[in-house]
C-alpha cells in the first residue's frame, strides 16, 4: 500500500543577508495510512520549515533545492500555487497551527473563516447550508461550547483551548486524508493539552485520517504516535516505530533527548552545547560537536541512515 505521505531527501535553504542558510538537508519521513507520525526536534531544527515545504507555503526567501514530497501518490513539488489551493490545502490536507490565539483572524466571525475554507474546498454541489450543518456537527463533536451559535461569534470570545478546537474543526471540515499539526498544544495549559491530545487520537481512529504531528515533547510522542522521526539540525537522524525508537534509541541524539527527560515535557536544556548555525554546518556528522561517542570519521564524513535491529533507521557510525 502506498503511504499517505512520503518525503525523501528534502533540502531547503533560505537566502539571508549572511548568505545561504541550509535549513533542511536530507529530511525524510513516511506516514502510513491511518497512522500518527511524530516529528521531534529541538527548537530551530526545521520542523515548521518541513511543514511549510509540504504545504507549499515557504516564505519568498526559501528554496526547495532537492528531494520529493509525495502525497497520496502525487509529487506536490510540481504543483502550481493555484493547483495546491484548489486540490490540496484545506481540502485533502488539513492544518492545525501552533498558536490558537494568533492563528484565527481577529476581525472576522469564526463562521466567516470556517465557511471560507469550505466555500472553496467542500465537495462540489454542496450548499452553504450544508457547510453550516457540517461545521455545527463538527463543533458539537469537538465539544465547543454553544455549537449552534459559535459560528456567529468572534475568536476573542473563545478561550485558547476552545479556539484550538475551532481550528481542529476547520482542519477536518472538508474530510482531508492527512492532517498536519505544528505543535498544536504548546501554547495551551497542561490540562487543556491533555484533552486536545486525547481528542486528536480519538478523531484519527474515528475518521480514518492520518496525522503528522510536530512536537518537542517525547511524552506526547509516546502517548499519541505510531511512528516517530527525530530531526537534528535539518536532518532526520532516527526514525521508526515509536516502541523501537523510544525504548531502544540508537542515535546518540535520541539517547540524549530521552536521558535528559525520561518523562513528559522535554525542554532539551539538558544537552550540552548548541545547535550549529544553518549558515555554518559541520562537514561531517552535525551532532559531532555535542556527541559523547565521537570517532575521528564523524568530523569528516556525513553518516548515511541504516536500518538497525530495533527496526529504526539511524544516521550514525556508532553501532549503539
Amino acid at each position: 500500500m502506498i503511504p499517505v505521505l512520503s518525503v525523501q531527501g528534502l533540502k531547503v535553504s533560505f537566502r539571508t543577508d549572511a548568505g545561504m542558510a541550509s535549513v533542511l538537508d536530507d529530511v525524510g519521513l513516511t506516514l502510513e495510512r491511518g497512522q500518527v507520525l511524530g516529528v521531534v526536534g529541538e527548537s530551530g531544527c526545521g520542523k515548521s520549515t518541513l511543514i511549510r515545504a509540504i504545504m507549499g507555503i515557504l516564505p519568498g526567501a526559501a528554496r526547495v533545492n532537492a528531494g520529493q514530497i509525495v502525497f497520496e501518490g502525487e509529487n506536490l513539488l510540481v504543483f502550481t500555487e493555484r493547483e495546491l489551493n484548489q486540490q490540496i490545502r484545506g481540502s485533502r490536507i488539513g492544518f492545525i497551527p501552533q498558536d490558537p490565539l494568533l492563528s484565527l483572524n481577529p476581525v472576522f466571525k469564526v463562521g466567516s473563516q470556517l465557511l471560507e475554507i469550505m466555500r472553496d474546498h467542500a465537495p462540489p454541489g454542496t450548499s452553504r447550508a450544508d457547510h453550516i450543518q457540517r461545521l455545527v456537527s463538527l463543533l458539537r463533536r469537538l465539544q465547543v461550547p454553544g455549537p449552534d451559535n459559535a459560528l456567529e461569534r468572534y475568536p476573542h470570545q473563545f478561550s485558547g483551548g476552545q479556539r484550538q478546537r475551532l481550528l481542529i474543526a476547520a482542519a477536518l471540515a472538508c474530510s482531508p486524508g492527512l492532517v498536519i499539526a505544528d505543535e498544536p498544544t504548546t501554547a495551551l495549559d497542561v490540562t487543556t493539552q491533555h484533552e486536545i491530545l486525547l481528542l486528536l487520537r480519538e478523531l484519527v481512529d474515528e475518521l480514518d485520517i492520518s496525522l503528522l504531528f510536530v512536537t518537542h515533547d517525547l511524552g506526547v510522542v509516546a502517548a499519541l504516535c505510531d511512528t516517530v522521526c527525530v530531526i537534528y539540525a535539518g536532518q532526520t537522524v532516527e526514525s521508526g516505530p515509536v516502541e523501537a525508537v523510544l525504548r531502544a534509541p540508537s542515535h546518540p541524539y535520541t539517547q540524549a533527548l530521552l536521558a535528559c527527560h525520561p518523562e513528559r515535557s522535554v525542554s532539551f536544556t539538558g544537552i550540552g552545547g548548541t545547535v550549529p548555525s544553518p549558515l555554518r554546518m559541520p562537514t561531517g556528522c552535525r551532532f559531532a560537536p555535542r556527541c559523547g561517542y565521537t570517532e575521528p570519521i564523524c568530523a569528516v564524513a556525513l553518516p548515511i541512515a541504516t536500518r538497525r535491529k530495533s527496526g529504526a533507521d539511524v544516521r550514525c557510525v556508532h553501532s549503539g
Partner: protein
Amino acid sequence: MILRFVLRRCALAVPSLIGLLVLTFVLIRVVPSDPAAAMAGDAATPEQIAQLRHEYGLDRPVWEQFFVYAGKAVRLDFGESAFSHRPVALDIAQRLPATLELTFAAMAISIFLGVPLGVFAALRHNQWPDFALRMVSVLGVAVAAFWVAIMLQLLFAMELGWLPLRGELSVSVPPPVRLSGFLLVDSLLTGRFDAFGDGLAHLVLPAVTLALGGMASIVRFTRAGVLDTLQQDFVTYERAMGYRRMRLIWRYVLRNSVTATITQIGLLFGGLIAGGVVVEAIYDWPGIGSYTVNAILTGDHQVMLAVTLLIGVVYAVVNILTDLVHGLVDPRLMDRS
C-alpha cells in the same frame, strides 16, 4: 450595543466642545481691537458703539457674558456678518454644502486611490513600484496645495481646456432648484443632468488638488498596515488552508490593516475642511473656505468665530464616526467599551 457605543462617544465629546467655547470666548475678549467698534465699522459714532456694546452684552460681568455667549452659540445665533449684513448662521448654512461636497469628493478620491495603491505597494515591498509610490507620496505631502492648484489650472484649464478654471457652475448654466443645497445632488433630484455634468467638471480640479495630500498619507498608512498584517500568524494559517489569494489580501488582510488608515482618514476630514480654505480661494469655490478668507480680510469677527466653532464641531463629529468605524471593523474594540 452600537447605540450605547455612540452615545458614550457623544458624551465624551461634550467637555471638549465646552472647552472650545471657553477658548474662543477668551480669544474674543483678549483680541486687542474693540469688537463693538469693529462691528460698527469706521464711520460709527461713540454712541453707536456703546449701543452695540450694550446689545452684545459687552458691558456685563464676564461670567454672565460667557453664558450669554454660550447660549447664543448653542442656538446658532452668531449675529450678522459685518460684510454681507445677513445672519452668519444663514450664510454658513448656504455655503456649507459646497464645502462638504468638495470635501467628500476629495475624501473619496484619496480613499479609493490611496487604499489600493497602499496595498499594492505593500505587496511589491522593496521592489520598484513600492519605491516609486513612496517617492510620490512623500512629494504629495510636501508639495503645497496652491502650487498644485495653479499647475493643474495651467495644464487642464488653460492649456488643454478640458476642465473649467474656477467656480462651481458655468454662468451659462442656470443653477438647479435648491433642495439639499448640494449642487450635484439637487441637479440629479431635479433631473438637471446638464447642471450635473457641468458641476462635476467644475469639481474635478479642486477635489483632486485637495485629495493629493490626504491620498499620500493614506497610501503610507495602508502600506505600513498591510506589511504588518502580512507578518501575522493568521495569514500563514489562511494560506495553509487554501484561502484564495485575492480574497486573502483584499478581505482578510485588508480589514486587519486599516486601523491606522481609518484614524488617518478621520484626521484628514477635519483637516480637509480647514485646508480647503486655500483650495476654495484659488478655485473660487463658493464654500466656507472662501467665505472665511473674506472674513479674515475684512476683520469680520462673528464669521471667524462661527467658522472656528463649526470646525470644532466637525472634528468632534468626525472623531465619533472614526471610533464607530473602528468598532465596526474590529469587534474587539466594541466589546471592550
